[in-house]
């Protein structure tokens, strides 16, 4: 049975300078890495003889407007089916230069999920073969899951939502 410490020690020995914010909320090893080393790290984990993190469970964006310089994040969940072990990897970029390298070269399943993340957060995946909007219309000129966009039209006067919603 693989433990978080084993995995972390192995990753640290290779990518120690690029692994920060290590935690294990609810038992899942979580750490942050930089976009420069992202593809190398995933390739390493994919090819690793023992770990074999070959299943990209999910990939999604997240927006923290208060973290100046690293507002937008991408959260990856990896799963090693052989070892039955999951890890979570995050990377953060600035909202002015939201470029993250694509993982489509390693996982085919990253394709639409990266398109979805681009669609909702405006994170551009460099090297993606077909980076278009997927859920929203192509003409849309904003990224709706960013925190600055309210759920409803704020101009409406016919609804009093003070007691409801966030």
């Amino acid at each position, binding site marked *: 049975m693989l433990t978080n410490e084993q995995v972390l020690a192995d990753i640290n020995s290779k990518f120690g300078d690029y692994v920060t914010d290590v935690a294990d*909320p*609810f038992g*899942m090893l*979580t750490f942050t890495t930089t976009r420069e080393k992202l593809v190398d790290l995933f390739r390493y984990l994919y090819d690793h003889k023992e770990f074999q993190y*070959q*299943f*990209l*469970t*999910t990939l*999604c964006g*997240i*927006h923290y407007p208060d973290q100046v310089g690293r507002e937008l994040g991408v*959260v990856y*969940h990896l799963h090693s*089916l052989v070892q*039955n072990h*999951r890890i*979570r990897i995050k990377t953060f970029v600035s909202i002015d230069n939201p470029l993250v390298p694509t993982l489509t070269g390693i*996982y*085919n*399943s990253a*394709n*639409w*999920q990266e398109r*979805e993340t681009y669609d*909702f957060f405006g994170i551009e995946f460099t090297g993606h073969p077909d980076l278009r909007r*997927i*859920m*929203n219309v192509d003409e849309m000129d904003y990224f*709706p*899951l960013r925190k600055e966009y309210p*759920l409803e039209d704020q101009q409406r006067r016919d609804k009093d939502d003070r*007691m*409801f*919603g*966030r």
Partner: protein
Amino acid sequence: MDYNLATAATAPDKELVHYVNELTTINLGPTHPATHGVFQNVLKMDGEKIVSADTTVGYIHRAFEKLAEHRPLYQITPITDRLNYCSSPINNMGWHMTVEKLLGVQVPKRAQYIRVIMMELARISDHIICNSILGVDTGAFTGFLYVFQMREKIYEIYEEICGTRLTTNMGRLGGMERDLNERAITKLRAFLKEFPVVLQEFIDLFERNRIFMDRTLGVGAISAEMALNYGFTGPNLRAAGVDYDVRVHEPYSSYEDFKFEIPVGTIGCTYDRFLVRNEEMWQSVSIIQQALDNLPNDGFAADAEHYYLPPKQEVYRSMEALIYHFKIVMGEIDAPVGEVYHSVEGGNGELGFYLVSDGGRAPYRLHFRRPCFIYYQAYPEMIKDMVLSDAIVLLSSMNVIAGELDG
């Protein structure tokens, strides 16, 4: 229309070559009876052969992830109903378990067993739809009618549990809303007696049917490596020969108490997927039987008054219940800070919830891992060089649910 005129210009008979090289464009969807949902494929056809497919999704996108950021935790349950609406209880329970993990609420065994019963019923109803519609798409309508009467029985059991049928909003944070009543147990027992007969009849109609086998055997095969790389989960992955099942790999809701097998296929073709689903229904029947026979007696809800909505009759009589009712309904109760990923084995794959809480009453971010959104992207590659009628059968056997696809 794309005309390949490059060769036509130099060819001796211009007119003739023009016809030979012509590709036909066909819109499969967005509203096509064979797609069983709202999504579009623009197919380039060379005669009856598919040359390329361009997929458009998002027709019924309802911004669930944005909506969820503005709702107290318990109000998100009805959103999850509308993901895979063929097996809503699984989505509901998956969401409840995610939140319970974040809140640290321990659910009593009885509630967990009731949840297992409901989730397995939902799995049966999901597989019934997928397999019988696959029959319809190959031209066999009878099997569909046979098994759909059983789906009606399942919906009647849902009605006894939670009062609704399709979008169930079943259970609550911390347990179930009420105990299994006598009528529900009677209906469950009757279902367990009747369903195997109907399922066997359905299987007899299809599994060795020459026409059905000709249409499905070897159609749309996918290798285990490719299936994993495309993020396949659920019966589609197991048909390709990978025995990954969240119920076994990360048991939730006391699945470790039950004995069941994970059926796997060999080459991942349509016929394999059909067989895997049929076998899973047998396993589900066995799980329901085990859960019903060994139902513990330790209450159907956790003792978590901050999160579990009190019974209505209590609200009228006791002060605390009234206060907690008000606080929960108005969303006055904050969730702890944390991030949690929890997944359950949905009808068509691993349904995951990634919940980030910043200590507010609503999630800071909620992401649904929607299984068919992830595996449907393999479809254009799988149908390349296939004839159109096979592509329809393949689509049907992949169990793509538009509500879940678009989220």
